[in-house]
């Protein structure tokens, strides 16, 4: 038996730190340090010499040239943002809906669950890479499955053809992006006890009211979680246009690092706007309930 020399609290803190330590070391070495290093590089002109790297300080030169002297960043980022703003709410609402449906007592719901979780292994892995490789860099789903020609046949060339195609194209993307979100929502939904629903039913609440008054408020930590996850997932997706721009980097190391950090600042701003909006919204809701 080990003698207890330390006070309980110190002991606990020590144990906590020991728990964190292995991950922290990896984090420091392979994420935190490289990130700071790339920040350093973004202010320098990096030259690769045979046995070393040489860094010449250039100040904000790269930042200036990316932000003010070319439109390459804006050309790819603005359409991407438009798409993201449409897609994020759609992904969240869709996955919440599916999660609630999958929580119902249905015939064959285990099968449905398995199928709807499948995108977890599409979106992060090799499969979509393969898709993108074979589809000339886009997820041209409609063309691939000849749906496009069917659509043309059915709709003729009315003005509706294009919007419908767009929506369908997005829709499939939404499906494939929502695997993890559905799991998180479903797990969240199951933390709500059945007794809350039962008492609501006894009090004569309609399903609609139950959803707004019980399900949604209880799910709000998970909505926040999913919101962040979705934003991060979309913005760090290897095939999004900005990542492409960074990856293809014709510029020097310093230039690319500056691009990375500018992109990062943009994501941070976007994420904080979204979070602010979310907090405001949920505070209003909880204020209204009281």
């Amino acid at each position, binding site marked *: 038996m080990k003698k207890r020399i330390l006070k309980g609290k110190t002991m606990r803190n020590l144990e906590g730190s020991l728990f964190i330590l292995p*991950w922290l070391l990896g*984090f420091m070495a392979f994420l935190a340090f490289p990130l700071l290093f790339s920040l350093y590089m973004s202010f320098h002109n990096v030259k690769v010499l045979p046995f070393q790297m040489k860094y010449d300080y250039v100040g904000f030169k790269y930042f200036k040239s990316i932000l003010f002297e070319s439109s390459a960043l804006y050309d790819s980022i603005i359409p991407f943002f438009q798409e993201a703003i449409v897609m994020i709410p759609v992904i969240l609402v869709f996955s919440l809906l599916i999660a609630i449906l999958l929580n119902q007592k249905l015939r064959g719901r285990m099968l*449905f669950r398995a199928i709807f979780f499948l995108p*977890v292994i599409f979106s*992060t892995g090799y499969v979509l890479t393969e898709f993108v490789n074979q589809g000339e860099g886009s997820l041209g789903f409609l063309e691939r499955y000849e749906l496009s020609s069917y659509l043309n046949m059915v709709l003729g060339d009315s003005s509706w053809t294009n919007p419908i195609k767009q929506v369908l194209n997005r829709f499939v993307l939404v499906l494939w992006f929502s695997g993890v979100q559905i799991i998180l929502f479903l*797990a969240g939904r199951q933390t709500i006890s059945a007794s809350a629903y039962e008492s609501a039913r006894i009090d004569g609440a309609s399903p609609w009211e139950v959803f707004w008054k019980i399900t949604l408020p209880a799910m709000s930590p998970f909505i926040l979680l999913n919101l962040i996850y979705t934003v991060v997932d979309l913005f760090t997706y290897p095939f999004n246009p900005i990542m492409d721009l960074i990856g293809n980097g014709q510029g020097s190391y310093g230039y*690319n690092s500056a691009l990375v950090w500018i992109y990062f600042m943009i994501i941070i701003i976007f994420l904080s706007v979204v979070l602010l909006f979310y907090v405001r919204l949920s505070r209003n809701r909880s204020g209204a309930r009281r």
Partner: protein
Amino acid sequence: MKVDMRLQGKRLVYRFEDWLAAVRRIDRTQIVIIIGLTLLSAFMLLPLVYLFNHAFKPLHELLLFPPTFIVNEPTMQNFTDLMALTQTTFIPVSRYIFNSVIVTVLATAGMVFTGSLCAYPLSKHKFPGGNWFFGAIMVSLLFATEVISIPRYVVVQSLGIMNTYLGHVLPMIALPVGVFLLKQFMDQVPNELLEAAKIDGASEVKIFLRIVLPLVTPAMATITIIAFQTAWGNAETSTLFMQDDAMKTLPFYMGTLTSNLANSVARQGAAAAGALIMFLPSLIIFLIYQRKFIATMAHSGIK
């Protein structure tokens, strides 16, 4: 015999009637939901069907535009092509597979283990700087590792783990998504439960292993899949940190098969077969873990 047949027929009829009754018991909204979900599932399964069919297409079907969905004349040609291709390379493909298996197992275990260890104090211990640390994790979430490959190269080089398995595994270990998800889930575990365990004299390790981990099984299963995906599909560490060809992994090798598509049409088929082979382990892991995703949450006593 005849009586037997009749009996069996009767039984079938009964069974059918039972089934009909069961179907009738499902109300209309359920039917609508099931039909809706079935339609959506069809969309969900498309990539899977495509992938499987693609691997068995003969060359003239592979190159059709627009690509077809279902294979017309299935053939094993692509797989034999792939085998033939692998025989021409200097290093046998089994070496790549071996490397991949080792790296994936080590890295997945490492990511899940260190990630859950780290998430627990972050969620349940209040210690100075904890919020800042979590903030740092959130920030690092926003960077894809692809964009910081050069500094990572410098780190790996100075640690002297180039061309070793450690060079594959260590850079992948810190998976911010994992800590982030697990921490959010552990926040939902009631503190009273942990207090009770502490009063009963359970050590931190015991609380972690016996109480917290079982309660966040869905998150653990999700993380395991994500970690597996990350490790199995990762060609980055091979490209950057391994100069020795014998230390590279399967995704890198598959990448080299597809990368010179422009000058070799014939490799299309082998690439499609390779894609299927790359995908199968993911599918298997997924099928093993998918039940765990949500199975335990309902009976966990959370809330």
